[in-house]
């Protein structure tokens, strides 16, 4: 019994240590918590949840038709789209729809060619300086990891995309700024990107603002953590094994120590 108590004490100590590690939040607006089919990339209690691939595919359409005009996603390759349910032919067609600058060829010339699945997602700008110059001095962030790179993750991206509003009276808006309820400081350089029926979904889903924001958020979540489902699946097996093994070891230990106690 005493042993059990010390074991529990050790557990409590370590958990307390972890909560002590909770990071500084500051006075940044908190986006509303939403429900996600996959539970969220950083959600702990979502052992069996996976991505809603219909939403992820629609989200890719939103990215392709709207976001990709300014934002790169250089960690993704077109071949990765196979993982969210596009067929080989569809992936090839999507890749071929962009012009990729390649080279130098045997003559030392750069040339353009249609994209292939092993290409990275097409960057809308030739370099960071061009991206900054076209966007008021600051390059739009790459979106490959954006869901993991912001506090509140999916909720923040969704909140940001639906959070454009009239600036309250007296708000000191810097030039080129747009008011957003959930952007830290509220003045964001990006103009509102998504609008009601701004795009037409290929699967016929009604393209409300919330629907588009939700879909593209799920696409970006998948892009940031593509191994989420494999991770949880393996985790269930690993922990399942360990729990059984701990039981066996506990029984073995009890039996062995029975003579001693």
């Amino acid at each position, binding site marked *: 019994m*005493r*042993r059990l108590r*010390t*074991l529990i004490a*050790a557990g409590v*100590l*370590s958990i*307390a*240590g*972890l909560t*002590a*590690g*909770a*990071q*500084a939040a*500051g006075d*940044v607006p908190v986006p509303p918590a939403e429900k996600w089919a996959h539970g969220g*990339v*950083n959600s*702990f*209690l*979502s*052992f069996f949840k996976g991505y809603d691939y219909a939403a992820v595919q629609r989200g890719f359409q939103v990215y392709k038709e709207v976001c990709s005009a300014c934002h790169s996603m*250089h*960690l993704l390759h077109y071949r*990765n789209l196979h993982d969210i349910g596009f067929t080989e032919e569809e992936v090839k067609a999507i890749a071929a729809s962009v012009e990729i600058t390649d080279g130098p060829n045997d003559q030392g010339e750069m040339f353009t060619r249609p994209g292939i699945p092993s290409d990275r997602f097409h960057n809308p700008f030739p370099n960071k300086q061009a991206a900054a110059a076209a966007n008021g001095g600051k390059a739009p*962030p790459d979106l*490959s*990891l954006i869901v*993991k*790179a*912001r*506090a509140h*993750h999916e909720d923040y991206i969704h909140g940001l995309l639906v959070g454009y509003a009239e600036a309250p009276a007296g708000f000191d808006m810097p030039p080129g700024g747009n008011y957003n309820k959930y952007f*830290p400081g509220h003045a964001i350089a990006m103009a509102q990107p998504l609008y009601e029926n701004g795009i037409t979904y290929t699967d016929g889903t009604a393209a409300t603002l919330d629907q588009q924001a939700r879909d593209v958020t799920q696409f970006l979540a998948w892009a*940031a953590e*593509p*191994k989420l489902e*494999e*991770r*949880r699946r*393996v*985790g*269930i097996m*690993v*922990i399942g094994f*360990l*729990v059984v*093994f*701990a039981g066996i*070891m*506990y029984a*073995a*230990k009890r039996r*062995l*120590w029975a*003579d*001693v*106690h």
Partner: protein
Amino acid sequence: MAHAPQSNFSNPVVNWIDQRLPVITMMNKEYGSFPTPRNFNYFWNFGALAMFVLVTMIVSGIVLAMHYTNNTLLAFDSVERIMRDVNWGWMIRYIHANGASMFFIVVYIHIFRGIYYGSYKAPRELIWIFGVVILLLMMGTAFMGYVLPWGQMSFWGATVITNLFSAIPVVGESIVTLLWGGFSVDNPTLNRFFALHFLLPFVLLAVVFLHVAALHITGSNNPLGIEPKGPQDTLPFHPYYTTKDIFGLTVFLIFFAAFVFFAPNYLGHPDNYIPADPLVTPAHIVPEWYFLPFYAILRSITFSIGLPFTDVVLIPAKLGGVLAMFGSIAILFVLPWLDTSPVRSSRFRPIFKWWVLLCLVPAFFMLGYAGGKPAEQPYVLIGQLGTVMYFAFFLLLPIIGRIEKPLPLPASIAKPVLGGGSVATGATAQVMEKA
């Protein structure tokens, strides 16, 4: 073979080797029949757990090093390539990243155990000193490892921490230039940090070897803090403690796996998924959670110390913070001599017990809490209070050793005054026969 020991193993190959190099005899002596106090509680698992985590870190780290590129332009993307395209790369990286946190959790509990049960006292002072060296090496290794992914927190953490050395008078600036390999944190910094991050774990392993070797000279302390008086007080390490350690390890691995597979980024910071940008400073630069108590001590010295009634500054606030932070580790080295009580275990030390639980432990958590918050009130005050409590714990120990009246110690481990531990002298021999 004048001095060759007489080996008596039934397997002729084993026998042949053992006569020439008695490693098997040695392993049997140190991990087989090694007499170990019979009354360990589960706190005594944490040394073995730390050893396991160290090996896990070295193995996973070597695999990561095979795929990592130590160049500022490529490092961030090479880590993401590990996450996306290397077979099982995501798992190996999450094991390594969370393994660092696990190492500190396990080692902090191990240190707590050492303090609470007085394991640092004679004749085990040198084991304790090696332990503090291990802690320092761990901190250096962990800090440099966090720089390698070259995210925003990597870069700015490296900038803040290396800049601390500039507070040292006269040579400070030169030390910082040497650490950076230039005049700012840049590619040379990343390269030397990678080289050192690869090297230091093996130095760590060597010091762990000394830590364990010294332990095997004196034998382990135990929850009663009294030395075993004979065979009735000990058990052979195998099978008793091998079995108990494997059970403890399995429980620990469940905890570890829960982080790796279900909350791999919980202990990290979102900003480290943004590539390092020397032109954009994050709103709050926070170190990894395991450094927060020491970071809070660093920031709690908000005042300069000078000659009273003059403008002469002897110790600027920045230097004071650095001295306090390094002092918080340095003071551990002299703990065996600050604590003058002859009694080891807190069980028999009515004042020291509560001094640990109500001063040192809360100080550690208060500092950890304050270290994760921005440098503003009330967090600075909490950090300062924690700093005072932390140092007071150590500096008042000589007084406690003098005024405290320890409870009577039991005659032996097998016959404690408290609790009803039965004497089972036959148990050892019986199991040896079974095995």
